[in-house]
């Protein structure tokens, strides 16, 4: 029971963590991209189209491309044309719901996909997967879960040890000071947004290829927004993001485990749980700061 829940939690947490790692860099650059919900959806469709055409590898590749392309729209409007980032992100997500709807209908017809979609099998890591309780949950998952393990230290290095990370954090903390010191703020931010889009796209791929096994309209159902809450809860740090992803993965997974059991609690309560949890988390993480109405609110430019 605990083992099953943990395994499901890690599987559900994988797309959340992938998207959150990308958005973490965006947030470090002082931005918030609500369009990653759209990028994830685009990635999900890209994965379905690519995988049905020529296997899961093509699916992941097309998902990555779709995510980057979606993020490029956000970068063009919010970074280069200096449009409001909240409105821009909302519009990008809205447009992607429409665009994926058109393409999915054209490509898969009314019947939908899922009938013949290849999925990613779990690849057990020899030795580790036999560990008691956590073995199966952590080390008998799809390759994209292992990508999370790879990206966590990598993003940490990128943020805190590389020149790019330094310039990115400078752009986020004090953009004009960074610019005065010769940092190409817009270019750095664009790179972060595109990286975030790539990660969101791959997150969509993991949702389709390693979790659900099909594509449906609006299937991301707010997971991109949850990824943003994860970034805030995780204080924009890789370890924090990992822990927060697992927490949300568990909150979503619990409904799959409990739904089959019936019971007195209406299942809608479990549907609402992750979002209520996200709200609680925002309050608890904001308590430590103290941001009034003046200036940018804490979650737009989350303080570490």
């Amino acid at each position: 029971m605990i083992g099953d829940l943990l395994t499901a939690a890690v599987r559900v947490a994988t797309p959340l963590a992938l998207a959150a790692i990308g958005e973490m860099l965006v947030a470090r650059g002082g931005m918030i991209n609500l369009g990653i919900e759209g990028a994830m959806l685009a990635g999900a469709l890209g994965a379905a189209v690519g995988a049905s055409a020529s296997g899961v590898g093509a699916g992941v590749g097309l998902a990555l491309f779709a995510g980057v392309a979606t993020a490029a729209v956000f970068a063009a409007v919010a970074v280069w044309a200096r449009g409001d980032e909240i409105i821009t992100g909302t519009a990008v997500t809205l447009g992607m719901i429409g665009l994926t709807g058109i393409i999915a209908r054209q490509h898969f017809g009314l019947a939908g996909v899922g009938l013949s979609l290849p999925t990613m099998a779990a690849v057990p890591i020899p030795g580790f997967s036999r560990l008691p309780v956590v073995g199966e949950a952590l080390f008998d998952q799809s390759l994209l879960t292992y990508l999370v393990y790879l990206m966590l230290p990598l993003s940490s290095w990128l943020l805190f040890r590389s020149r790019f990370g330094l310039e990115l954090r400078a752009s986020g903390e004090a953009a004009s000071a960074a610019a005065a010191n010769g940092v190409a703020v817009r270019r750095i931010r664009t790179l972060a947004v595109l990286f975030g889009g790539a990660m969101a796209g791959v997150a969509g791929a993991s949702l389709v290829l390693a979790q659900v096994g099909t594509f449906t309209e609006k299937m991301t159902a707010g997971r991109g927004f949850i990824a943003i809450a994860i970034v805030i809860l995780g204080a924009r740090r890789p370890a924090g993001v990992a822990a927060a992803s697992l927490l949300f993965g568990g909150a979503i997974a619990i409904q799959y485990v409990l739904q089959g059991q019936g019971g007195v609690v209406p299942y809608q309560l479990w549907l609402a749980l992750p979002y209520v949890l996200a709200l609680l988390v925002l309050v608890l993480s904001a308590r430590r700061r103290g941001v009034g109405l003046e200036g940018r609110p804490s979650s737009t430019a989350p303080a570490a």
Partner: protein
Amino acid sequence: MTGFAWRSSGIRRDLATTTSAFLLGLILLTLFLKVAGFDAGAAIEALWRGSFGSWYDFTSATLVRSIPLVLLGLGFMLGSRAGALNIGMEGQFALGAIAATAVGLHAGSLSAWIAIPLVLAAGALAGALWVLVPVALRLRFGVTEVITTLLLNFVADAALSFAVTGPLQEPSHIYPQSATIAASAQLPRLLVGSRLHSGLVIALGLAAFLGVLLWKSRWGFRLRAVGANPTAALLSGRIAAGGVFASALLWSGAIAGLGGAVEVSGVSLALYQNLSPGYGFTAIAVALLGRLQPLGVVVAGLLFGALEAGGGAMQRDAGVPAVAVQVVEAVVILTMVVLGRRQTSHR
């Protein structure tokens, strides 16, 4: 934090900007449909036929769908004038619909003069209560309303699902919907032989009222001052920025809830899971296309009502999914964001 202090540059230029944004959206949609392999000509033709093709389509489809869009667009306009981005209107709409249904089901013994105001008030109150949490979190903890209102949409969706399968489900407990609300709680129709209901009068009346409120009252002045620059408003010593922000967001939520109540008592007459095809998000496009002006919101609401109505026809007659019109909405928003951005950037 919000980037739109729209500087109206004369009605003629506003009109030129909005028209080009809308046309660009339509052109891109045609392009996408062509590339995707649909019969774009047939789709656009269905879009036109379903919206302005006949008097019946115009009144029963376009105008009926414009009503919630105008109402919610006004709600978004009011919030953003004070610097509050209410991305949660979809949820407030749902809560307003739930409350209106709960009251409307039990209003059989009341006269319409009492039942209808009661239903509408219940919807507005529920919408305001739903946004109370984001208001409190913003003022007390500094958590941006953008994320909190957005997250509450999903909670509201679960609440709606619970309502139609639980306490408000129709008596036979088979379908996920409520029974029909009492006849006295239904908004009267405006035209014989059409589905157009008197919610249109409410939407237009509210637009006029908000126009006067924003530009002729002290509260309106404070609201716009806080939206333009909260720090300056606070430092002036005469404006309690937090209070103005809170009241703007609460009224925004109340208007969205009213929208849900009007939809139930004017159109659906019962509660359904899929009551809103995304009105809460479309209304953001409506408000921006209307340049955050009441009259502009009314005109933009009409255009987007036509788009929604035409989208339905497009799905029926040309096999193009109705969500396709969201591409137009997105292009409109992005174009307006680029064209209407503040000249002096904060970055």
